[in-house]
């Protein structure tokens, strides 16, 4: 069995690259988050360097590197790849051992994962093929309304008349939001309408895996407190939110790499 002093987990998503550095006792020492900006390889390299610098370590000190995400294969140097769902499960389990349902609202898709006590995937529902209902729309609305994603919540909760959108397509939604703004619809109503639409999608997904007592949320969408609140209301459970929702899969990637390495031995 490999003696591990330091390890890294890298998650190369479609929009963001994230890296975490952990020590042999699985403590997170540092992390980095960077936009992809057109190149997976470059972003992977940069984000790892950033995290290493923060931890005051050099690349050579890493004993093992785990990678996940769309661009995992573009990570330079030796690394062990794992599926994103598995990484999210391990990562969230590491942060919140009691969590049995993970809601992940990513940029391109949403997922609901059921996890075991040991952080393994017990079931999972993925919304793919069409980006309707993904976290992308939260980015779009932040851009259109020119507010930060974590400010959406404050506006949403004040809404009395949430907008009912006529489309689920994120692309068309953007236009619809823009025109609503132009017409003078209250920002809060627009955001609340959006939050409700996402929440009802997620609810349908949760129904498929059956709800459990402790639930958590991660991915970019977890940064939107308004969404989290509406989701809590819709599913009737409190949601645990990581301090930095972006890095949960990267943590999982580091943990899984070690796991896989040990079983290989």
């Amino acid at each position, binding site marked *: 069995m490999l003696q591990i002093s330091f390890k890294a987990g890298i998650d190369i998503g479609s929009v963001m690259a994230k890296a975490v550095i952990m020590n042999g006792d699985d403590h997170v020492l540092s992390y980095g988050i960077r936009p992809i900006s057109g190149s997976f390889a470059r972003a992977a390299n940069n984000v790892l360097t950033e995290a290493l610098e923060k931890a005051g370590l050099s690349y050579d000190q890493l004993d093992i590197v785990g990678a996940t995400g769309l661009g995992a294969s573009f990570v330079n140097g030796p690394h062990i790849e*794992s*599926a*994103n*769902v*598995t990484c999210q*499960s391990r990562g969230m389990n590491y942060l919140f051992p009691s969590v049995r349902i993970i809601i992940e609202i990513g940029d391109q898709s949403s997922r609901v994962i059921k996890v*075991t006590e040991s952080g*393994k*995937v*017990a*079931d*999972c*529902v*993925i919304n*793919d*093929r069409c980006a309707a209902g993904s976290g992308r729309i939260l980015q779009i609305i932040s851009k259109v309304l020119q507010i930060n994603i974590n400010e959406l919540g404050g506006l949403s909760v004040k809404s009395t008349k949430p907008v009912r959108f006529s489309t689920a397509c994120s692309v068309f939604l953007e236009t619809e939001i823009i025109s609503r703004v132009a017409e003078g619809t209250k920002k809060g109503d627009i955001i609340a309408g959006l939050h409700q639409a996402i929440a009802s999608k997620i609810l349908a997904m949760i129904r*498929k895996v059956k709800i459990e007592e402790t639930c958590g949320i991660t991915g970019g969408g977890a940064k939107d407190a308004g969404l989290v609140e509406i989701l809590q209301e819709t599913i009737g459970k409190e949601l645990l939110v990581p301090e930095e929702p972006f890095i949960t899969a990267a943590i999982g990637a580091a943990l899984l790499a070690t796991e896989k390495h040990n079983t290989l031995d």
Partner: protein
Amino acid sequence: MEDKKKKKSSAKTLQTAREAGNFGKKILTSAREAAEAGRPVVWAMVDWWLGTTIAKAMGMEICYPENYGALCAAMRKAEPYLDYAEGDGVPNTTCGYARNCIGYTRKLKENNFVIPEDAPGGGMPKPLFLLACGAACDARYKWFQSLGRYMDVPVWTLEFPQTGVMEYFMPGNKKDNITFMVQELRAFVSFLEKLLGKKMNWDNLEAKLDTLFKTHRLAYEVDLLRKAVPSPAVNTDFWALMIPHLYMPDDPEALEYYQRVYDEVKYKVDNKIGAVPNEKYRMIFSELPPWHTLGVFDEYAEKYGVAFAMESWNYHVPSPLPEDEKEKIHDPLELIATYSYHKFNEYAPVALEHRMEPSLFTAPYLKYVKDYRIDGLFAHPLISCRPATYTLMHLRNLLMEKFKIPSVIVEGDIVDIRVFNEEESHAKMEAFIETMDHYREIRKKEGFEW
């Protein structure tokens, strides 16, 4: 579409399975030869041996447009036909096989019913009539009816009653169902006799039935052998093997072939030779596979030690009719009707035991998972096939509720390669391995046998 994805057919694990493709070729060549010799050709739906055996006994050659759809997809030549059909206004939500066939028929018509040079597998010749079937889905008679737009040939629709579970056990109902089917088969025989201007050859029909039952007996035995651990054959073998037993079980060549299949599988079982090296997980597949990317199952086997020990109820032969029941039947049409009805309803007792519906497409799996010691279901919802898709969520719920067996859902299509995301399927499988581990533990705790 000049797709850059590599063509990914499966290597198949059985020697005999690799030969099965010849039967597919034989279907098409025999039909073309018949057409050239001026003998009648029929296009028929898979009908679980209800009407096609009768038509064959009358000397007709049969082509199966559903199978042809799978062939075009496997050769990755379906797209132009799909485009043709959509262009004619058929919604793109309808069956991929149907759109492939509608597009093909339009092309055939435009070529004055001379088979186009570039037709995959040599093509299907113009039929004398179309033999539709009411079993399994609406598309399988509506699609043939819609071909009237391209060729003026009659359609005959075989009645295939669809009984509910509770209703199956109502006194007299099974008998009424079979009587109805027999009446309809008689009407079908009259239709054929009128169309061909000759009498039914009953001796020929009986001889064909005899061969059919023998072939099916072997196919059934092969299914039983597949319960062995490690699995002697897997789903990719089955999808090749099914051509002889589904389309031409009455052909002596198929019988001879199936004897060899049986021998090969038996040998593997006796010597504990697994189809998948290091079989770690036994999965079941439902319902129709991605014909264009069957090789993906070889990859799952190699990467994760997954053996697809069983699959797709619809295409398996049923258990043989009990001899005493069979002996009481003297009318070959009644025998046929009883057998086909048996295929669709033999799992009604299982459904009743679990207080669930329907007995088709779901109940068989509730038995399979026990018999084949299954760890997980691979559900493949199809974008264009509702019958093979309708019950998947329901089946997923049932397997979890009754047996603590998890499912992985990978969307795709039988024909349309554009909707199958291969990389995503691997990611899902990787996560699913953990899920299967987890439920193995749970099943152990709850006292399940496997």
